[in-house]
């Protein structure tokens, strides 16, 4: 992946505009997903992921390749999302056609209902996390990044990145403690 990314960058820097298109197509979903997990809002995720690609387009010649393209792009996305959240953006409930496909609760078992309730509670709890904790949690759990790389993305020390992550998990644990099994 890394070499393929660098190949696309080389082609783009040599004037091949189609290489950027391909890079967008390859990365748009992960960029969107990260933006969504940060903002919990589909419209904001779309706008911020587009803004992130605009920044990538403008700054690709400055990408020094000391990190992977993913790390560099995540840094852009997360910074944009943090700025967005710090401006006081509010998450909103996704519209009907954006709802994740899940089992119909009315026809589901008690276990399915409990699972749905638990996921809703989790979504609400995540929205209450401070932005940097939310970023640390997302990058660690969903992107499986090591704390050192998360620290690089957030521009903080590795120790601070760990603290953000641990605080986030403990906060969620506290908010979801009333569910059977603790979560």
């Amino acid at each position, binding site marked *: 992946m890394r070499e393929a990314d660098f190949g696309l960058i080389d082609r783009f820097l040599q004037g091949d505009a189609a290489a950027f*298109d391909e890079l*967008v*197509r390859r990365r*748009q*979903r992960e960029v*969107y*997903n990260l933006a*969504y*997990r940060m903002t919990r809002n*589909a419209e904001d995720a*779309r706008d911020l992921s*587009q803004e992130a*690609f*605009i*920044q990538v*387009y*403008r*700054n690709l010649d*400055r990408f*020094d390749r*000391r990190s992977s393209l993913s790390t560099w792009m995540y840094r*852009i996305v997360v*910074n944009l999302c*943090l*700025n967005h959240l*710090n*401006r*006081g953006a509010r998450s909103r409930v*996704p519209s009907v*056609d*954006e*709802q*994740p*496909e*899940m089992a119909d609760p009315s026809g589901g078992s008690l276990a399915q209902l409990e699972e749905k309730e*638990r*996921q809703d509670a*989790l*979504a609400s709890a*995540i929205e209450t996390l401070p932005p940097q904790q939310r970023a640390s*949690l997302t990058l660690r*759990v*969903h992107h499986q990044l090591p*704390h050192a790389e998360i620290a690089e993305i*957030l*521009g*903080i020390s590795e120790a*601070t990145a*760990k603290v953000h992550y*641990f605080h986030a*998990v*403990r906060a*969620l*644990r506290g908010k*979801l*403690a009333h569910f059977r*099994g*603790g*979560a």
Partner: protein
Amino acid sequence: MRCEEAGSTLLELLEGELPPGRRAEIVGHLEVCAACGNELSAYESLLALVRADPVPEPSPRLWEEFLPSLKRRIEQAASEAPREPASWLSGLRSWRVFPRPLIAGVAVAAISILIVIRLPGLLSVRTELQKTPAPAEQLAGGESGARGSSGVVPTEAARREIGDPVIVAGEAVEDVLMLAAAIQRLPWVDEITDRVETAWVWRPESDPRDWLASLSEEEQQILIDHLRGFRWSPS
């Protein structure tokens, strides 16, 4: 081992962050303590739930429109004439050449500029000696921009005139040269540093003062509240 002690390290255990000896202690405790075992299981269940947290699938139209819409935005942005960089930013356009301490220095300088911009009339500066303190511009190093890792370098004249220790958030600063370091130890500086860095990475043509002017009222208030801690103390 007490449960409280074991409980505080369960996440580190799951993250594989514990040294072998410590890990063996915790695992040994978990083998005999059902309560801590349940707590560990609860964390594992929680993390599994987080991993399963879905991103709602957007409509197919979003993906069809994504690239064309992005291209339109790029073309539109390109058609807007880029602003000339501020002269003191010339040559500083590549963020990657800057070590983080320098960026932190810039943040301190930017905060110092904020002192100059925002605080006259707002900052409570108490003089307990019958002595005129140095003007804020001298304290803050004026519009020093990027002058190195300390960010704020007062003039010799300012140092001679000041003399008395300055209290920054309860910390006595004997030497005004240490002012920047004291500011950097304020707990909120990291966030400001991040914001400045973000501004510089993505708007390198812009002047940090524009960014400072764009702070929200809440952010301004946070800064002002902290900067109210600046005061002259008796020597």
